[in-house]
């Protein structure tokens, strides 16, 4: 009898309609906030464009990036060569298009590796705490204590030059950054009531970490990920500037910038266009990151 009564009361109590709020998934919520940010949206479109370029670039590029023409070196922008030609008479526009793939590859892959490593370390460190935490954090401190570029120079000196090693170098010094962010997020999430609730049900560590804590850190990881891509591209460019980056004739933007810097007053377009490409790309990733941050999690900061 009590049963029936209970049910009746229940039915009268649930008169509120949820329909108006329907389909508010976390994603739609995110999208609603994100699409209001014009700049970030534009940046997102630009990034997508870059990715498309990276995938199909060589097909669209008017020339091959290695096609040299010693008769037409260092020519300024014209109808035939939209961004002019470089010291070997190669079409700078085509090279920039092809370079998109490389810069994105370096940016994405290095940060991806760094984020993966850092996330795992951060989760472990934050979740288990104690000596594990101390050790991981001390290592991060040590890595932190050195300027990123310095570490990269050293790592490349050890591993040898080349894009692959640039990726590894950037990944390595991205690790502590992600580790710290994820750790602090983990610490915060670990003490949330819902994680405690799960623990009180008897969940194992693995479940707690992957089902409850990791998804909670995901938004900061994504935001940071986007922003770090920008700095990874810049670091790669700096390394190329110091002669430690991509190998010729790879049309890596930083390498193009670096090799063109001797023509700064004779043929400024050789540095200008790759410089703009780097600037716009990094800008786009930063703006996108900003937008994501505002939409995903207003609490994380630089």
């Amino acid at each position, binding site marked *: 009898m009590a049963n029936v009564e209970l049910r009746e009361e*229940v039915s009268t109590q649930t008169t509120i309609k949820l329909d108006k709020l329907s389909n508010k998934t*976390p994603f739609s*919520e995110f999208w609603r906030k994100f699409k209001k940010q014009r700049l970030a949206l534009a940046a997102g479109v630009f990034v997508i464009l870059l990715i498309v370029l990276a995938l199909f670039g060589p097909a669209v590029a008017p020339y091959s990036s290695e096609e040299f023409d010693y008769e037409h070196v260092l020519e300024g922008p014209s109808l035939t060569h939209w961004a002019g030609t470089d010291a070997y008479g190669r079409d700078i526009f085509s090279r920039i298009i092809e370079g998109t793939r490389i810069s994105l590859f370096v940016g994405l892959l290095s940060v991806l590796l760094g984020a993966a490593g850092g996330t795992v370390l951060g989760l472990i460190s934050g979740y288990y705490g104690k000596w594990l935490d101390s050790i991981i954090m001390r290592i991060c401190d040590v890595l932190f204590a050195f300027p990123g570029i310095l570490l990269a120079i050293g790592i490349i000196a050890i591993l040898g030059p080349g894009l692959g090693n640039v990726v590894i170098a950037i990944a390595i010094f991205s690790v502590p950054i992600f580790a710290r962010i994820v750790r602090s997020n983990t610490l915060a999430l670990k003490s949330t009531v*819902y994680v*405690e*609730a799960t623990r*009180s*049900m008897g969940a194992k560590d693995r479940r707690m970490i992957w089902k409850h804590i990791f998804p909670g850190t995901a938004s900061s990881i994504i935001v940071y990920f986007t922003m770090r891509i920008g700095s990874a591209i810049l670091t790669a460019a700096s390394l190329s500037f110091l002669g430690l980056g991509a190998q010729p004739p790879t049309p890596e933007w930083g390498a193009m910038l670096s090799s063109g810097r001797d023509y700064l007053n004779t043929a400024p377009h050789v540095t200008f266009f790759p410089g703009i490409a780097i600037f716009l790309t990094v800008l786009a990733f930063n703006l996108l990151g900003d937008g994501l941050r505002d939409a995903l999690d207003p609490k994380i900061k630089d």
Partner: protein
Amino acid sequence: MQMLAISEHGDCGGVKMEAPLLEVKNLKKYFSINKGLLGRKKKFVKAVDDVSFTIKKGETLGLVGESGCGKSTTGRMLMRLLDPTEGQIYFEGKEISNLNDNQIRSLRKDFQMVFQDPYASLNPRMKVREIVSEPMVIHGIPKEERMERVEKLLTVVGLSAYHADRYPHEFSGGQRQRIGIARALAVNPKLIIADEPVSALDVSIQSQILNLLKDLQEEFELTYLFIAHDLSVVEHISDRVGVMYLGKIVELADKQSLYQNPKHPYTKALLSAVPIPNPRLKRERIILKGDIPSPSNPPSGCTFHTRCPLATEECRNKIPQVKEINPGHYVSCHLF
């Protein structure tokens, strides 16, 4: 029939008066806070300091006290979310305070918790269905059964099945608290520890939840440890009530004697401090002076002596013992 399944143990439980469902003996929890160079000199927060009580099957024990007096810490120790510094906890006669994490895990389904903050206690990234079925996943209940049961549970707590595929943020506070309760009920617990389950809710919603908890208790023969700071709420829901002050239970009695005939000066003051929603009722108030002392630096003797209007020299120096002044009425005060 499924309803029966949920109340399984309630049916066969019967009345076993002899052994209490839960027995707590001399429970203590000291949090250490590092002070001094390299943390060598340890300082303690005596969050819970020598607490003993029992809860019988099917009854509700209310625990009241002001903020920071150790109510939640007690609750969390019972849930084994915290390890007691000292003391024993017996569940159905079996000591659970010395089990390790793995051993306790399977026992966890017998006691569940309802949390104070309905906004924070649900993972915002999970759908209601996942939230409610999570304890079942953890305790290995097969999928088909889970799905069915989630919907049943939602109905039981006054929501409907079609809420299952929504996210917590789409619900109001009261509804979320219902989801939390549904989750707690999912694995047929015997004991529910409710840590201020209504204090974050509006009055009109609070009464809904209180009614629901009462109904569920009746239906599933649940046992509650009900933690709250609102004396009227505790009075409403509990059979027996314990009053805590600075990590200690200062008075513990059945509801009637405690509210009608409070013994401890603190209980008296507390009761008189509650504003009564009746403008004509002008009561004699005992306004306590001063603030609640910090548990990291508790007063000597009776911890209440700094605010007690009746404090004597003895109170300052001697820690009072718990005395049973009437059958079932325990007080810890030098006056008795």
